């Protein structure tokens, strides 16, 4: 292995660091040298120990064994405060903000040097930072009411506001739009030019190839290897990570759509914040068909999801499933009609974090057939199903009885997928089904969606990942500001056209439209 492409020397040395949690060795003698001024990617399957390692570098966890060296000096940290003091900042995989407070307040928490709040000065500094990196978010907006994409930007700027030397980002791109990712990478490159060091965790191999100087691959807590990005291909990385060849585009013969299954007719759904409402959206899904809904998040996907599963009722319009109206039915009733769903917010809408894994796996069906009788849960069927799901989806957990909270991000997603795919649904409504999944797991989930379709289920797939939409969909609908902007087939269009539609620019490609779409990565949701 050649010395890294940047000439700064080792800034952070991770020396045989181990960390054990009850039942798992999350980091097993991990050694990595991070060089000054490089963008270093951490890659690995769900549960490989990436977040754990990042948390150790940020003082959240203390290594059971091993040591860290910053610029040659031993680095001992007892809390994130020490990490910040040492010039290390981190953006977490799951958001860490104070929802009822404003963007500005969130940004200055812990970073304000004066005893008396000087909001004017803080505002100027934040605005400067926003201007420098060309991001637009209202500093006075309540963070809890922003879209996930905007919240991700706030998380990043909260860290930038500190002015640090080493920046750790744990899957920051999972909820950003393609333009947002480009914008973020622009920021990271500029930081690199200024001599800052970036440690980036992502599951998207094309992002790794695009942005990183070097990559460290983790597998089951151990380092597989650290390589120069220039020396490897996407395939190599995937193989190192999963231990087998991975197919990025799963085989898809296309479906043979049957009868009309779901009919959404001119529905209006208001949203509390006034954004992301539905303004007369119409859409159909047939049996044996995957309909991909492409769109920048915040254009009504959440409202559509909620309306379909019965959490929010449309103020007008009609939703028919197999010919019968489901408007006004309870979520439970709709689920019993054969509708399975994977929500976009896995922690708040998908799981009860303090339940055991096996309990989350049967959540929603816990009152019926094999799992309960006479109002009591039956242990054997529950355990049996848990075991089967854990094997099938390779959910990484010490046991089915473990508390769900302790699982890694991707494994949380797998629990939901396992639960929803197992019930032979008639209609599957899935929102970002592969968010945070490693390439192997994403491949598996995509295969399963195709399988369900081939068995005759209708699938409504809402995703920001256009490759996924193109790969899986029989029909593509583009959602923009609460309506379907355009509908087409994967063969009749290309990424560029869909991208324009997603930005609200209808057909007739002209030069002006293309440039307008690139700037709004952060401004749109």
């Amino acid at each position, binding site marked *: 292995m050649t010395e890294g492409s940047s000439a700064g020397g080792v800034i952070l040395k991770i020396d045989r660091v181990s960390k054990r949690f009850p039942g798992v060795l999350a980091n097993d003698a991990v050694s990595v040298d991070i060089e000054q001024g490089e963008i270093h990617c951490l890659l690995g399957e769900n549960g490989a120990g990436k977040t754990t390692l990042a948390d150790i570098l940020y003082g959240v966890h203390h290594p059971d064994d091993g040591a860290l060296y910053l610029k040659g000096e031993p680095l001992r940290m007892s809390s*994130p*405060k020490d990490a910040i003091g040492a010039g290390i900042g981190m953006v977490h995989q799951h958001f860490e903000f*104070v*929802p*009822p407070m404003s963007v500005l307040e969130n940004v200055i*928490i*812990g970073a304000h040097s*004066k005893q008396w709040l000087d909001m004017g000065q803080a505002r100027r500094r934040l605005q400067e930072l926003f201007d420098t990196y060309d991001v637009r978010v209202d500093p006075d907006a309540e963070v809890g009411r922003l879209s996930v994409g905007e919240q991700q930007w706030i998380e990043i700027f909260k860290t930038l506001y500190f002015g640090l030397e080493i920046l750790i980002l744990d899957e920051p791109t999972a909820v950003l739009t393609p333009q947002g990712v480009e914008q973020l990478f622009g920021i990271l490159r500029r930081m690199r030019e200024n001599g800052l060091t970036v440690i980036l965790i992502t599951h998207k191999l094309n992002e790794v190839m695009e942005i990183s100087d070097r990559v460290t691959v983790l597998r089951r807590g151990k380092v597989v290897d650290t390589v120069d990005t220039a020396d490897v291909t996407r395939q190599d990385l995937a193989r190192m990570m999963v231990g087998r060849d991975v197919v990025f585009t799963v085989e898809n013969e296309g479906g043979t759509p049957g009868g009309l299954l779901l009919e959404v007719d001119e529905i209006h759904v208001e949203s509390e914040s006034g954004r992301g409402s539905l303004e007369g959206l119409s859409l159909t899904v047939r049996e044996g068909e995957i309909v991909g809904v492409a769109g920048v998040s915040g254009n009504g996907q959440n409202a559509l999801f909620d309306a379909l599963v019965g959490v929010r009722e449309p103020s007008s319009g009609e939703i028919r499933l197999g010919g019968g109206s489901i408007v006004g039915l309870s979520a439970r009733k709709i689920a019993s009609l054969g509708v399975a769903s994977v929500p976009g917010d896995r922690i708040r809408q998908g799981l009860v974090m303090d339940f055991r894994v096996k309990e989350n796996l049967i959540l929603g069906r816990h009152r019926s057939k094999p799992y309960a009788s006479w109002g009591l849960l039956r242990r054997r069927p529950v355990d049996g199903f848990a075991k089967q799901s854990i094997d099938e989806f390779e959910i990484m957990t010490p046991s089915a009885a473990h508390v769900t*909270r302790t699982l890694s991000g991707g494994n949380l997603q797998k629990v939901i997928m396992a639960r929803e795919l197992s019930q032979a649904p008639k209609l599957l409504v899935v929102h970002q089904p592969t968010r945070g999944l490693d390439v192997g797991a994403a491949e598996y989930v995509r295969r399963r969606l195709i399988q369900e379709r081939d068995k005759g289920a209708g699938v409504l797939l809402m995703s920001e990942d256009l490759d996924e939409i193109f790969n899986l969909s029989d029909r593509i609908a583009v959602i923009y500001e609460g309506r379907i902007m355009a509908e087409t087939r994967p063969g009749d269009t290309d990424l560029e056209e869909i991208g324009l539609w997603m930005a609200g620019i209808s057909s007739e490609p002209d030069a002006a439209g293309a440039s307008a779409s690139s700037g709004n990565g952060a401004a749109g949701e």
Partner: protein
Amino acid sequence: MGEILTHLLTPAVIIGILAGAVRIATPLLLAALGEMVSENSGILNLSIEGTMTLGAFAGFMAMSWYENLWMGLLMAVVSGMLFSLIMALMTVTVKVNQVVAGLALNILGIGFAFFWFRSSFQDRSSLDVPTVPTFDTADIPGLSRIPVVGEVLFSQHWLTYFAFLMVPMVWILLNKTRYGLELRSIGHNPEACDMRGINIVPRQYAAVVFGGAMAGLGGVFLSLASTGMFFPDIAAGRGWIALAIVIFGNWRASWILWGSLFFGLIDALQLSLQAKGLSLPFFGDDYQVFLALPFVFTIVALVLNRSRSRSPLSLAIPYHRGER
């Protein structure tokens, strides 16, 4: 009913009731402001009633030993702080369930005060209650001469002026200082604050101990300003009402002021009617209905504020770093 109205429409009675409301509001306001600060840091301190009782007792004892009112005041504050230090230790450091800890400390505080009181005055019969001199009211020169307003607002105890002064002080602390911003953030999301390098533990300790000092002051107002006596149920539910006022006031200093005054007014009204021996419509001589009113209003306020609640999101939830 007619009798009640004639009684209430007399100017002197009105002034009396209003001045009484301000006086009665004082211990409520002190305790509620302190509790609000504590809750803003995420610690629900249910032991206010016990802390007030202890403060009233400590003040009373110090007064009877040293015959110095200021010494009494000091001891009340110190006892409130020490007592809430136990609360902080249990909830912030040991992280036990806050409701359980608060309820246990309540019983401990009241029991301890009662026990010590009885053992100090065991030779006396329970009817022969010892008394001590109390703080005089302090007229504010000039202002106290303003008709009505002067009598209602500016012929009060020093502690009352202090309590009212604490309203803007607490507001400034919470909203205009870095410390306040951090405290409020901790109450909503301690993990996020920890990740921003904020030391949570000392801040929560400080907030809880501040709450204890304020409850101690509220308590000593009862023994050394209102009555000159100590008896075990001297707090008479005021600690619980202070807790209700925090909710009623939706965790805002200004609303807590109005809440305290409002509940003070209810009590003053009740006392005035009772003193006159007037019977209530429907309830006759059962003046106890007034005791329930603060809680009824609190529930109503809770319902009305439902969508605008400013309750700290992590109230009463212990934080463990790195536990996910």
